[in-house]
């Protein structure tokens, strides 16, 4: 086996891992403040990709503005979803949140399938990032390098914002003890809504970045979210860094499997999940409950 094949597959794995990390981070943040699993996270990612495609196709708005506009718009939409739907489920069994967002995912996916079928809409790589560089041991397409770099920066920035800033400290207070945080004068409902919006914006950001790699496809979200669920079960949602690290790690594991035993590439994440459940039921980074 050549170094080129190996590093090429590792890069592909790292790109998948970048999307796993962005989405599982969002899931972990939402789980922290709302206590629910957002099944619609994959659908938001898909809508993000389609929004970028739609902006380019109908309004001639390019990749870079889309990378800012789409997450902003989707973040607002997410806040609307939180206010209109999830807020009404507060205090109920968290399973209802999972079911409601599952319904939302079906609505979004079903609508896009009806309009665009199940084939992908091609989205061009932005001009500045076309081509690639020869690193000596491998050829690195610029856009793929950018996806990995940008996702790492965004994940780190999100992690820093939550773990190291004053606003983040408030958020963590809401996560730990919402009642006490409220009593100390924090506007808890607003913080929850904004946090949900930010997590949705992260998913939409991932969607825009994915459009040139995977095209905009109505099914891209549900295919991804189930793997991300496995990632989240493996990492545990107790720690944000855990969510990020397991995202990249499992992407890499998938890439390696593609090199050594391709038929198992689809299922390797699930197999790892099964093994983790047997050995460490609380997850790699989870605290035993």
């Amino acid at each position, binding site marked *: 086996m050549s170094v080129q094949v190996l590093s090429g597959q590792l890069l592909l794995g790292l790109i998948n891992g970048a999307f796993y990390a962005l989405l599982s981070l969002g899931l972990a943040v939402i789980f922290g403040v709302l206590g629910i699993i957002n099944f619609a996270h994959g659908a938001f990612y898909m809508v993000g990709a389609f929004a970028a495609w739609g902006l380019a196709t109908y309004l001639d708005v390019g990749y870079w503005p889309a990378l800012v506009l789409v997450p902003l718009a989707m973040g607002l939409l997410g806040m609307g979803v939180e206010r209109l739907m999830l807020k009404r*489920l507060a205090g109920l069994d968290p*399973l209802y949140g*999972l*079911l409601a967002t599952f319904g939302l995912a079906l609505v979004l996916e079903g609508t896009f*399938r009806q309009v665009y079928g199940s084939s992908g809409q091609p989205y061009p790589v932005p001009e500045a990032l076309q081509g690639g560089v020869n690193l000596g041991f491998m050829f690195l397409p610029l856009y793929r390098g950018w996806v990995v770099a940008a996702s790492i920066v965004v994940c780190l920035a999100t992690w820093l914002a939550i773990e190291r800033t004053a606003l983040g400290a408030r958020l963590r207070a809401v996560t730990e003890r919402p009642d006490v945080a409220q009593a100390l004068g924090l506007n808890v409902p607003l913080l929850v809504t904004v946090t949900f919006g930010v997590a949705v914006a992260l998913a939409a950001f991932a969607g825009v970045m994915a459009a040139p790699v995977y095209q905009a496809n109505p099914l891209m979200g549900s295919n991804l979210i189930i*793997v991300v669920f496995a990632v989240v079960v493996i990492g545990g949602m107790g720690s944000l860094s855990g969510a990020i690290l397991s995202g990249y790690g499992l992407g890499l594991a998938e890439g390696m499997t593609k090199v050594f035993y391709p038929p198992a590439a689809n299922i390797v994440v*699930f197999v790892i999940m*099964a093994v983790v459940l047997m050995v460490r039921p609380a997850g790699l980074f989870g605290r035993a409950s």
Partner: protein
Amino acid sequence: MRLPPLALLALAALALLLAAPWVIYPAFLMKALCFALFAAAFNLLLGYAGLLSFGHAAFFGGAAYVTAHAAKVWGWPPELAILGGTLAAALLGLAMGALAIRRQGIYFAMTTLALAQMLFFLFLQAPFTGGEDGIQGVPQGRLLGLIDLGQPTSAYYAVLAIAALGHLALYRIIHSPFGQVLKAVRDNEARARSLGYEVDRYKLTAFVLSATLAGLAGGTKALVFQIATLADVQWQMSGEVVLMTLLGGIGTVAGPAVGAFLSVGLESALATSGLPVAAVIGAVFIACVLVFRRGLVGEIGARLKIRI
């Protein structure tokens, strides 16, 4: 002797279903009955053990594949083929359940979904499943050497008998001492544990029973409709059975069957309407969760203060 409301209801439903093929297309009824049994089996887990499995398509579809393969390639008679599929679902339930019950609540749901997706990919690639085409043209044969499953009306009565027996079994399980402990685990796991019950063993047994009956439904479906496809093992199918149960009423005996008939009816009505079926189903899902959490049967039961 005064019969309890549930028994009266069951007798009335049975009478209606016995007469139904004169009024309603048998294929529709058979589909609804298979899903009714599937949803009722799922409800044993969600409604009575409080465990939301998002991977029940694995048992339904897994059994469908095994039954179809046994009947078509191995030439097994229908009753053995269904039995084989059911047994396969039970074993699968044992394996998946043993893993999934290691996590609680929301993690349990995600784990079952992920395990079922793994099975989906295995079926997608396995040589015997026919990939995207599935197993088609499964021979129907004669059930127990007597009942010709190729004839719609007799096939319908066979399916009705299977679904009725399945419901009876579930009713017995729910109202047995085992079922009582299950409800105790659902309502307060820590207390059940402190009373000396081995909670995990009860959960796993419930999981296996639920998987087994879901498999019975899937195997029956594969035989009477002569097909097993990827749609039977896909996550949408797992979602659909959750919706049926929610629509009828989680934790009610009659709810899942009612939900299955409503859902199958809704789908066949939508099929010709040109509306996106998945999107409408999703909207019904959201509406149910937001304003109609008790479901139809649960709501009626609560209004009339009876257990049905």
